[in-house]
């Protein structure tokens, strides 16, 4: 405003009782409009540049890595010992840790999230909903490092009380905490999809004598199917990328994770572990974090694209 007041030519003169803009003002406005639109476009295009940079950096350093390690070993080896004298690079060890925590998280979050979404969308009175949704938002806003502390120092000792043989660092508790963390996302996306189902469908079901639950299960969920699936996939993608909870409470030992009571490193926890160390930046062991990062990025990218497509689908239907 003030800048314009200083630099803009005078707006024009009053002729025959109306304001006629001056030539200079119109020219100035046209030019400044163009400049602004270019700046705005550049800001939007920055997001493309960010994605391109992510891909470039992950691929570039991974190529350096795969020049020294065969991609077949990378995918089939069952040991991950990059800093040993005789290093082995089997990413499946880390992937198994990630899959285990993700799976436990989903077992917690999918049923509870679906029930909560149905409850909020179909059962709860508006006032209850207005009260609950902010609380879920607060839950989503808790820093992940705080969840990590909560998992290691609060939940793990409690769980050790009734699960004998539960290690201090294990996959079970971080998995459950990840489930709590992704719950708000699943609820919010699933509820959004359910509310997009038109009321006429519900009224039709009620007119046929359906109860609320029958309407929810037989009309609303099928109607919102792609959106609800998208909610699960988005939750899965978040669980895979979750870092601090597993870095704090799941341990750092890379091994094939088949026992959730024992600790194991995940992809993300491994990246944190190497970042905290003092490995030289050009060593092979250091390059592993980019190969691990590329694996993580590809997994979440696939999930996100599927979810994007599913959500677009339900938006188009209604």
């Amino acid at each position, binding site marked *: 405003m003030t800048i314009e007041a200083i630099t803009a030519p005078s707006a024009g003169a009053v002729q025959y009782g109306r304001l006629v803009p001056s030539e200079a003002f119109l020219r100035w406005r046209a030019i400044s*409009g163009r400049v602004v639109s270019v700046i705005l476009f550049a800001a*939007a295009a920055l997001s493309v540049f960010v994605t391109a*940079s992510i891909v470039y950096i992950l691929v570039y350093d991974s190529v350096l890595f795969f020049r020294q390690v065969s991609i077949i070993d990378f995918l089939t080896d069952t040991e991950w010992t990059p800093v040993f004298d005789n290093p082995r690079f089997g990413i499946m060890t880390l992937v198994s840790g990630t899959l285990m925590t993700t799976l436990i998280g989903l077992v917690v979050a999918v049923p509870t999230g679906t029930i909560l979404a149905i*409850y909020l969308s179909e059962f709860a009175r508006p006032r209850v909903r207005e009260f609950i949704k902010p609380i879920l938002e607060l839950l989503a806003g808790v820093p*992940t490092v*705080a969840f*990590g502390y909560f998992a290691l120092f609060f939940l793990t000792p409690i769980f050790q009380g009734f699960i004998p043989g539960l290690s201090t660092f294990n996959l079970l508790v971080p998995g459950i905490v990840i489930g709590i963390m992704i719950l708000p996302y699943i609820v919010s996306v699933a509820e959004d999809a359910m509310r997009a189902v038109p009321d006429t469908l519900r009224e039709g079901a009620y007119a046929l004598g359906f109860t609320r639950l029958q309407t929810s299960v037989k009309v609303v969920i099928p109607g919102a199917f792609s959106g609800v699936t998208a909610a699960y996939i988005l939750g899965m993608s978040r669980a895979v990328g979750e*870092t601090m909870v597993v870095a704090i409470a799941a341990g750092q030992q890379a091994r094939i994770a088949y026992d959730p009571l024992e600790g194991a490193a995940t992809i993300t926890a491994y990246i944190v572990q190497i*970042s905290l160390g003092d490995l030289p930046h050009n060593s092979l062991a250091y390059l592993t974090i980019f190969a691990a990062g590329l694996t993580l990025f590809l997994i979440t990218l696939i999930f996100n694209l599927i979810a994007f497509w599913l959500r677009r689908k339900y938006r188009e239907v209604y």
Partner: protein
Amino acid sequence: MSTEVSKSSVEGIDEQRLVQKANRQDLRFAVTGFLVLVVAMAALLALVADFMIDGVPRISVDFLTNFPSRRPDQAGILSAWVGTVLVMLTTAALAVPIGMAAGVYLEEYAPKNWMTDIIEINVTNLAGVPSIIYGLLALGLFVQTLRLGQTILVAGMTLALLILPIIIVATREALRSIPLEIREAAYGLGADKWQVVRMYLLPAARPGILTGAIVGMSRAIGETAPIITIGALTFIAFLPPAPLQPEPPFINFEWLNSPFTVLPIQMFNWISRPQAGFHVAAAAAGVILLLLTLLMNGLAIYIRYKIRRGQK
């Protein structure tokens, strides 16, 4: 005739049972839903209570004014909270204007073509990229390629990229909720596009954009992983150069190039120590972090509530 009556009465009994059964199921589900709700709320409460019990007794003036220390009972968060404030300033200064500009472009300017489609898919996808990947991006681009070092500026830029999608989406939603008539009336008075945006749309969208900015900042305040990945030091026992100075030009930007630590990093560092004393300090730092994020989220929720009341 009589057989028909008895038949329908038999059916009537079945129907009644069916209805009763369905109603019972309905009630059972409502109770289950409510219980799940209670459990979810209990989890949040347990988390807050756990931090309060462990951490609050440890918080004192000394805790806020001491540097980290090797002795757990003397350790404080001075460098951490100063670092958090400065990093957040940098993040906000970068992410809010760029995010607003991108949101305005996509909502008001963008033509419907493949380029816009690509940008939109991109923004959606970026919102789902794990934060640690942003850390690897920052490590590869800012630290290794541009050699900017592990500074406040780099941390601010990293977190700004991370929260950009949040601010873009909030800006777009705020703009979308402004009635078309306002645009048409402004055009009718002879305004051009930029004048409409600047004089009518942005002021009307301000509360919505503000909400998005606050949610984004509260996300950035708690982010740990990307800052670990760029290799930020965790033991910082000094403050960055002050941004304000008594002699001209009064404002000093040297702090942007200073090493730093932030609250979540300090907390993570203390969690990883073996001594129980540091775990208490971590809980105390966690209380402050939780308080900040809950307050910011609460503020955002309140503003959104006010907007919605205003629209009705």
